[in-house]
């Protein structure tokens, strides 16, 4: 796709994938981030693609898991804590990566580099740009997801052949968050507003039944957790990893797909309004 | 300084005095042994192309770069040992603005002033005065980031004045500004000179050097190749006038031999031929008399650019 040409110059993925991204800089963050992307090399991506899941899963296996023992997994069966949390970390990683890729770089290209202005001067339209950028973020996220699933399998954390579906599920999560992230970044005006995105992403990461079953929450707030799109990603992946499939999965997929669609439409409208208005 | 009996450091006659001053980076000498003296109250220039050693010299004078060899006194003190005491009494305008762009105009002045040990009341009052000087009073409480390049430059200069410096170091003060902004700045610098602020200016722009400097040195390759006032230098190293001849592409070389002897000296630039003569009009007539017909001609007065060309064989700005 034509719209991806610019992005391919920048090698992907310096996000802290599993933890939501941070913004450690003051004003010149913009310059920093962009340059980092331009200059980063492939080996960092390769190494960290495998190293991060290993580090986290090891911590959960020997550490958190030993504290908790077994928890109630999909379908009510007891599973080792690390097997419980691994699919959730994969979902979180897909979300964080997608948000990272589509917020800062998009903001930069939109407000500073004026890359999209240039694209719109060609036969490309806002929809092409939106879909192109989002697709690229998803592709990059996909590379990490494959690495993550391989590490999970090696550590014996998948209980069913359905686990191969974790990769497309991760892509769906990426797609949903990439499109929403991109739509949101068209509303940002200054780099300091990125903290607002973190303010949303961090609670999603921590409270979407990622680290403990949703039953821990009082009944009165469980619906709140279910509003979190990440929760649907987590539940979907947990079911697939354990090989426990049920109809609720259609609902999870539906929520994520709807989010993706809304994000794409919103993004193309916003880009159209900002640059063609 | 020991050499000048009457010079005490509180009120030195010589603001800067360097002897055989050297700055090496690794094995490369950026400043290769220069002698320089700047007197109280004058505007002194370093003229030269990029890489001539101007900025390295300025950094040594500003006490942020230790000399590799030679002697240096600033305000009759040694930058090596008295850096903070010297810096307390000078003002520095760096080549690239380093304002805190996330703060307001006023905050930039106040915060900076505090580093010179000024009281809160003093910096408050001084900020108001300096914003007026820099014509930024109406932007006092605006963030710096969105200001224009000229405004930021004026603010940087205003900031350098916050401690009422006796000596002001200006590294390429107007590079990158539009003509209007430059003239405004030149006016401000002239005003400071009237107030008795000694100024040292680096520039690769001959107009700026001619406008601002009482006295200047021409630097090239880390060395001083000439010293004097702008008019002195022009008198000494160039003719009163210059005749510029432009030929169609490719024809310049062929025409050169036909006109070269009409002037005492000539220079060949990629796009034109310069003939140095005291009477440009007469020389042009002589050119025409030989049947040479350039595409265009120009008679102008000699500038420092011509001095530089004469001394180094190169242009100031390529």
């Amino acid at each position: 796709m034509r719209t991806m040409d610019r992005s391919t110059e920048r090698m992907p993925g310096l996000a802290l994938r599993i933890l939501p991204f941070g913004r450690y800089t003051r004003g010149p963050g913009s310059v920093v981030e962009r340059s980092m992307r331009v200059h980063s090399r492939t080996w960092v991506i390769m190494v960290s693609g495998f190293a991060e899941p290993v580090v986290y899963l090891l911590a959960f296996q020997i550490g958190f898991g030993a504290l908790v023992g077994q928890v109630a997994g999909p379908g009510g069966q007891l599973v080792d804590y690390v097997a419980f949390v691994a699919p959730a970390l994969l979902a979180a990683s897909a979300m964080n990566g997608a948000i990272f890729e589509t917020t800062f770089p998009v903001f930069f290209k939109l407000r500073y580099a004026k890359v999209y202005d240039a694209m719109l001067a060609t036969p490309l339209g806002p929809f092409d740009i939106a879909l192109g950028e989002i697709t690229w973020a998803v592709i990059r996220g996909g590379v990490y997801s494959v690495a993550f699933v391989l590490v999970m399998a090696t550590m014996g954390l998948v209980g069913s052949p359905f686990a191969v579906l974790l990769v497309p599920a991760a892509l769906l999560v990426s797609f949903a968050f990439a499109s929403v992230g991109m739509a949101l970044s068209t509303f940002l005006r200054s780099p300091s507003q990125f903290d607002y995105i973190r303010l949303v992403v961090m609670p999603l990461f921590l409270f979407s039944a990622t680290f403990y079953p949703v039953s821990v929450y009082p009944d009165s707030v469980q619906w709140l957790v279910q509003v979190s799109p990440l929760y649907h990603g987590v539940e979907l992946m947990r079911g697939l990893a354990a090989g426990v499939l049920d109809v609720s999965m259609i609902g999870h997929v539906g929520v994520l797909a709807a989010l993706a669609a809304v994000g794409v439409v919103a993004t193309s409208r916003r880009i159209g309004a900002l640059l063609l208005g | 300084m020991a050499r000048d009996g009457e010079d005490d450091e509180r009120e030195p006659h010589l603001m800067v005095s360097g002897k055989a001053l050297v700055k090496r980076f690794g094995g490369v000498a950026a400043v290769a042994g220069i002698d320089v003296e700047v007197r109280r109250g004058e505007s002194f220039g370093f003229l030269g192309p990029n890489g001539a050693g101007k900025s390295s010299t300025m950094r040594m004078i500003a006490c942020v770069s230790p000399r590799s060899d030679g002697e240096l006194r600033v305000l009759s003190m040694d930058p090596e040992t008295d850096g903070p005491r010297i810096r307390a009494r000078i003002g520095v305008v760096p080549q690239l603005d380093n304002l805190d762009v996330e703060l307001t105009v006023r905050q930039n002045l106040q915060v900076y002033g505090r580093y010179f040990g000024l009281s809160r009341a003093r910096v408050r009052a001084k900020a108001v005065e300096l914003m007026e000087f820099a014509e930024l009073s109406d932007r006092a409480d605006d963030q710096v980031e969105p200001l224009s390049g000229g405004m930021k430059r004026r603010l940087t200069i205003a900031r350098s004045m916050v401690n009422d410096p006796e000596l002001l170091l200006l590294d390429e003060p107007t590079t990158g500004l539009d003509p209007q902004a430059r003239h405004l700045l030149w006016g401000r610098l002239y005003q400071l000179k009237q107030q008795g602020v000694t100024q040292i200016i680096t520039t690769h722009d001959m107009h700026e050097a001619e406008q601002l400097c009482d006295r200047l040195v021409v630097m090239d390759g880390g060395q001083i190749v000439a010293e004097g006032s702008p008019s002195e230098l022009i008198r000494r190293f160039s003719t009163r006038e210059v005749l510029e001849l432009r030929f169609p592409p490719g024809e310049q070389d062929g025409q050169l031999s036909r006109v070269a002897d009409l002037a005492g000296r000539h220079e060949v630039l990629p796009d034109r031929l310069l003939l140095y003569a005291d009477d440009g009009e007469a020389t042009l007539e002589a050119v025409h008399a030989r049947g040479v017909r350039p595409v265009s001609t120009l008679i102008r007065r000699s500038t420092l650019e011509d001095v530089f060309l004469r001394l180094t064989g190169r242009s100031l700005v390529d």
Partner: protein
Amino acid sequence: MPPVRRSTGTVVPTWRAMWLRVEGHWAWYRRYWRSSLYSSGIEPLLFLAAMGLGFGSQVEAGAATGGHEYLHYVAPALLVAGATMSGMGESSFPVLSGFKWQKDYIAVTATPITPGQLLGGQLMWLAIRLTLSGVIYGLVALTFGAWLRPGAVLVVGVGVITGLACAAPVMALAAATYDEGRRFVVMFRFVMVPMMLFSATFFPIEQIPIELRWLTWISPLWHGNEIARAVALGGADPLAVAGHGGFLLALLAGGVLLAKKLFYRRLVV
């Protein structure tokens, strides 16, 4: 003859010079405190809620947690871990920016302030920020019922010391960084995050395989966590606490000396 000028500038003593830098940071903070409040103040609390309360609900109090509720076990360590993370974060790109992008360090060292005082001011400001966020965290954690004894107030101090001890070497690294700082991203991923996970923040060191345990022993966060738990939960060996404290102070001193050297090397050339 132009009038003779006398400059109003003077040289200020070192401590005051450092404090003036704090004032400078404060001028910025007054405008932008809202955005930084989140990352330094609220985020550790979210972690405490998620891990201390949520995850902790799955953990039986037992030998691994020293017989304490998980919330009580993890609360002091999360304060220290938060201080460590923001200490390292604040000393990476923001410090590099002072040299490279914003260039405020260049501006400041053109005044009577020296590079050493500049570094001191940076550390002083960081200490204030860490104290502030530690106090906010401590107060909110109090409403969660996370503290068992009055000695827990000292955890804020432990967080500040540990944060500074981790920050000083990062400042040194920033002073020696001339590119765009990609190494910081690598550092966050491969040093900071593993350090947070494997420094007995969330689970005791005994669970870490003996062959890998030396990695924990050299982790400053582990030493901080040990002191923090000692003061918050009680029953610690004073000698061990002194040893952990000695490690942190030595790291801090070494980091500051190295950073000072590199600040001069970067700013006085």
